[in-house]
């Protein structure tokens, strides 16, 4: 039963992150998603300080504000200070994450967090942190949080489907129609922040990025329409979660890390598959040589 809770939680994290990750990939904003997942750390530590317990979901909402702050700061550096985009992202998130790590180290007595958890979460403990109604347990806290998150994400995506569609595909045309593309951007980033904060507990900072980027990227290679891309992302997310769990059992290693590695293996398979498809369609006269883009 515990295994099931863990897999389910992991799957939900993958689904939540994946659905939003689809838009990040299409809008070429995966690295801002990466930045947000790091930069919310100070907010999470603050939230834990305030709530004094590991499972204060309402307080975690406040932590999501840091995600919006990140988006805002990146924009400030880029637009106002004319700093190039990659540096704007890099400076902002490394600084905020560093502050977060310092807080975790300094407060490790008072707050139930530690450095490792920050990076790769503790999904193994999920089954032990249960919600009780009266005498009966209704399931792990993390699961309910993910479920709530999924509800919110699904509603947003359903309700905002066309808005996100047009602002992702052709923001110039959308502005021409009078659509406030800036608002849509911040709404998306706000939702990403919320999801990241909710998933932190389970999978940690860097692995959230894996779920934001990898299943959607794999789906991107395989699909021709937006809703298929989302469906495939969900499927890949579930497979990564389940497969990753068993991989972790076999290797006796971090569960969330294994789930991310699983997603990576899935991606690799899809990538090779699409490569082969292209090769056979183009014929044998293509030139393939590998030159890494110089740093």
């Amino acid at each position, binding site marked *: 039963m515990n295994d099931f809770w863990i897999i389910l939680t992991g799957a939900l994290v993958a689904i939540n992150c994946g659905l939003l990750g689809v838009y990040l990939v299409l809008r070429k904003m995966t690295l801002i998603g990466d930045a947000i997942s790091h930069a919310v750390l100070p907010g999470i530590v603050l939230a834990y300080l305030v709530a004094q317990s590991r499972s204060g979901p309402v307080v975690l909402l406040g932590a999501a504000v840091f995600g919006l702050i990140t988006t805002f700061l990146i924009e400030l550096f880029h637009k106002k200070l004319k700093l190039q985009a990659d540096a704007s992202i890099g400076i902002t998130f490394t600084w905020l994450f560093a502050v977060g790590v310092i807080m975790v180290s300094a407060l490790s007595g008072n707050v139930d967090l530690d450095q490792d958890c920050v990076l790769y979460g503790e999904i193994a403990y999920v089954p032990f942190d249960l919600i009780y109604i009266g005498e009966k347990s209704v399931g792990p806290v993390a699961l309910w949080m993910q479920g709530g998150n999924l509800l919110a994400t699904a509603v947003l995506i359903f309700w*905002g489907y066309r808005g996100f569609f047009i602002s992702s*595909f*052709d923001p*110039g045309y959308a*502005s*021409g129609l*009078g659509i406030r593309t800036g608002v849509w951007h911040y709404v998306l980033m706000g939702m990403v922040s919320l999801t990241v904060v909710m998933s932190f507990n389970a999978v940690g900072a860097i692995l959230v990025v894996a779920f934001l980027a990898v299943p959607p990227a794999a789906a991107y290679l395989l699909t021709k*329409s937006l809703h298929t891309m989302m469906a495939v992302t969900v499927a890949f997310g579930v497979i990564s979660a389940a497969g990753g769990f068993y991989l972790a059992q076999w290797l006796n290693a971090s569960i969330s890390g294994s789930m991310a590695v699983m997603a990576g293996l899935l991606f690799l398979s899809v990538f090779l598959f699409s490569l082969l498809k292209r090769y056979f369609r183009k014929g044998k006269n293509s030139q393939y040589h590998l030159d890494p883009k110089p740093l």
Partner: protein
Amino acid sequence: MTSLEAHNLTVSYDRQPVLWNVDFEVPAGNLVGIIGPNGSGKTTLLKAAMGILPADSGYIRFFGKPIAEVRDRISYVPQRQSVDWDFPASVMDVCLMGRYRKGNLFGRLSQIDHEIAAEALHRVGMSEFARRQISELSGGQQQRVFIARSLAQQADMYLMDEPFAGIDASSEESILAILRELKSAGKTVVMVHHDLHTAIEFFDWIVLLNTRLVASGPKAEVLTEENLRSAYGGKLTLLSRVADLVKQQGFPLREKSTGD
């Protein structure tokens, strides 16, 4: 009736003035070409008109009104390369975007919306491609999809940015035929065009730009040797130097309004 007018329009890009005191009027029901050398501000003019770029000073009016009041009547066709054609969307998905309105984004599109979009696709000859993914299209086909999207909007005025760049001859012909139909129906088409020679064939009215307005009027009047030399004979050096100064200083081009 005037469909588009610019008054003393100055627009900067990266703090450097790209359009300077541009002032012209365009009558309705015409095929209008915006011509000029590279970097003369043609795309900037379209974007400023659509409100995508802010103007430092001056204004633009459509049918005598600011764009916010008449957005429904204006359709914008951006440059083809401004969009990532790898996006997972079908031809019909893109065409349906023409039926999106600021106000109707959260509901479902109606049956009529779908019919209008299908009709627009038919008009550009892309009906069989409706389910096709946009990455599988040629340049000319992509352009036709953009045009179909605009037609679906059922606007009175079409602002297009280099629709004929890099497309095959038959797409060019069919697009031109559609534009001429639009003109017969009393619509106005204002287009940034890259090629001076074909401009003479296509358009009735020409706006000749080179950071400033060189000339605006019926094509015979505008395309004189003197005007062309003025437009294509290089930038006005003094103007460029002043523009550089403005950029270096980084100060606003207009003093705060002092009732002068």
